[in-house]
């Protein structure tokens, strides 16, 4: 390319500048630089527009409000990394909510078993998704479209349209708050951040995680390399389902009810978070932490625009523009890497 690098070391006065440039290049190349930068820009913007924005309680609120889509989006990230997609996540979460609360409140099942059964029910949906994607070889879009409808219908049939109130206190544990430096924050936020840390580790440091990237990048080559891709994909969908079950528990903790109408637009919202986070919809590329930033970007805009008194229709407009920008940036950098 150029001889700039070799020239810089001769003059000691330029060394810090050169280090800064190298850091800059590395940062821009890092896949989460984009979403993190966008989030930072958004926060700076809103802090100028409203003096309530940058306050501790408000930032805590944004985190709490992001938990629902943020946790769902972890599962969505795993699936999208395999070049799949999951349209059923919100409906499966709602099904989990209803199972947990109905068992506990109407059938007298103790809280912990009820929670486990709810998570299992969500994982079972994941299993169905995984089986149809791998054994029947249907596109994930189509399979999860079907399970989305099935889950939604089952939620309404099983709940009889009723919101189930007064869940046992063990189920609302994660809604309890503790104080950091005078600001209250819920345990749900801590769990969400812990889950992101866990899956960052799993995706980057474990074999299972590396195989997920491999199968998303090139499923045929991965299979020929001896990795059992069918089992891998099924495990991804099942794990994602269990994550949706956790999201259900956290939403019960936040709203204190089992709501059959919960999560109806969460499938698109979670995909938005993944895309804004820099993960490629074609699979094989992306960092799960990016998804957290993507979800936070949406939460920041929704919060900031209300604080500014701007009509919500602009929030929808801005989200759409951001998604297109994010996907374009992803496409352009992808093309550069290829040559």
């Amino acid at each position, binding site marked *: 390319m150029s001889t700039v690098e070799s020239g810089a070391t001769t003059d000691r006065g330029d060394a810090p500048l050169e280090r800064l440039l190298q850091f800059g290049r590395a940062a821009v190349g890092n896949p989460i630089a984009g979403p993190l930068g966008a989030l930072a820009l958004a926060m700076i913007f809103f802090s100028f527009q409203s003096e309530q924005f940058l306050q501790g309680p408000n930032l805590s609120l944004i985190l*709490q409000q992001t938990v629902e889509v943020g946790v769902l989006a972890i599962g969505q990230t795993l699936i999208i990394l395999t070049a799949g997609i999951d349209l059923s996540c919100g409906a499966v979460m709602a099904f989990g909510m209803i199972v947990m609360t109905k068992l506990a409140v109407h059938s007298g099942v103790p809280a912990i078993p009820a929670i486990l059964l709810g998570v299992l029910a969500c994982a079972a949906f994941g299993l169905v998704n995984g089986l149809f994607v791998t054994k029947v070889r249907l596109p994930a879009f189509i399979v999860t479209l079907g399970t989305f409808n099935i889950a939604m219908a089952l939620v309404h049939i099983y709940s009889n349209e009723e919101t189930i109130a007064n869940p046992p206190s063990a189920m609302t544990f994660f809604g309890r708050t503790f104080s950091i430096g005078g600001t209250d924050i819920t345990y749900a936020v801590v769990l969400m951040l812990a889950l992101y840390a866990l899956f960052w580790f799993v995706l980057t440091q474990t074999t299972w995680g590396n195989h997920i990237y491999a199968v998303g990048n090139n499923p045929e080559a991965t299979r020929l390399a001896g990795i059992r891709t069918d089992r891998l994909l099924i495990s991804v969908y099942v794990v994602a389902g269990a994550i949706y079950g956790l999201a259900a528990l956290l939403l019960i903790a936040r709203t204190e009810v089992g709501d059959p109408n919960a999560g109806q637009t969460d499938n698109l919202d979670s995909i938005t978070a993944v895309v804004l986070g820099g993960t490629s919809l074609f699979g094989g590329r992306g960092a799960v932490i990016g998804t957290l930033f993507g979800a936070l970007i949406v939460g920041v805009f929704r919060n900031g625009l*209300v604080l500014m008194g701007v009509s*919500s229709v602009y929030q929808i407009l801005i989200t759409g523009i951001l998604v297109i920008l994010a996907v374009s940036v992803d496409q352009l950098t992808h093309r550069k890497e290829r040559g």
Partner: protein
Amino acid sequence: MRFSRWLVSLMGVLTVSLALLVGLSSARSDAPAQNTATIKVGLITKTDTNPFFVKMKQGAQKQARALGVTLLTAAGKIDGDAATQITAIENMVSAGVKGILITPSNDSVVPAIRKARAKGVLVIALDTPPNPASAVDALFATNNFTAGVLIGKYAKVLFKGKTPKIAMLDLFPGPSVGYLRHNGFLSGFGVAGITQKDSTKYKTSPDVVCSADTSGDQAKGQTAMETCLQKSPDINLVYTINEPAAAGAYTALKNAGKAGKVTVVSVDGGCAGVRNVKAGVIAATSQQYPLKMASRGVQAVVNYAKTGKKVSGYTDTGVNLITAKPVAGVPSKGLAFGLANCWG
């Protein structure tokens, strides 16, 4: 070999389950057994999941059974899914319905409605008028503006002598019901210059310190109230588009230690909502009657089939203010009435 056997048994299980499902669901349908000369009425709702529409369907089914007519039903997949409604209109016309009752998702169903009417099918809008209102033969609906005015008047008396700081928790951009209830509330509260014709834009007033959208959903209602409290911690009056949003707003108020200090008003009169009035979560709610809309609609179609006479114009199916704490000068009904007449 193993895979195809597995596949075959899976397909077998699926087919059997489907057959069972179809058998079970048709066992519940209300189609009379043999009568081919039966009058057919169509009911198309926005969704099958909102309890309001579920109740509407139940009301229509009950009336259809009582009158011995066949009810065909359909619904959009989500709020705003007009394409499914258009298909349903066309299919029902082919099936020979005498009349269609519809809650239009949006105005794109109007051409299909016009085609149906041109074929002699009576079309009645329930709950939501299309634009233009003349696109249908008749409208049976709550006057959503009046529903807002009632809770606005209630709040006005309650806040006499106090400084109101109002949060408006709205629906989402688009449906007229959101604008009508919002503007009605402000009009009843005393804001000048608002009329029922303001059905496409939100009006406001200096007393309104925050507005946020809820999609009529409990979790989003909670988020909206939390953010509004951040903006203006001294909010003391909250208008909500419906009772799930109100329930979510109350959770946020409770978490902020403001339960009982902030007045929440709402619209709908669903049974869960009236129970919330009893529990003190909602101070007052305007109750509407989807069952009446549906049963009157079925009756109107049957009248048309038997006499050729079409119903026309707007029939107000009524709204009542339900509260446990009545105020002077604003007529209201108590909890007993509310619970006896609630839906859902």
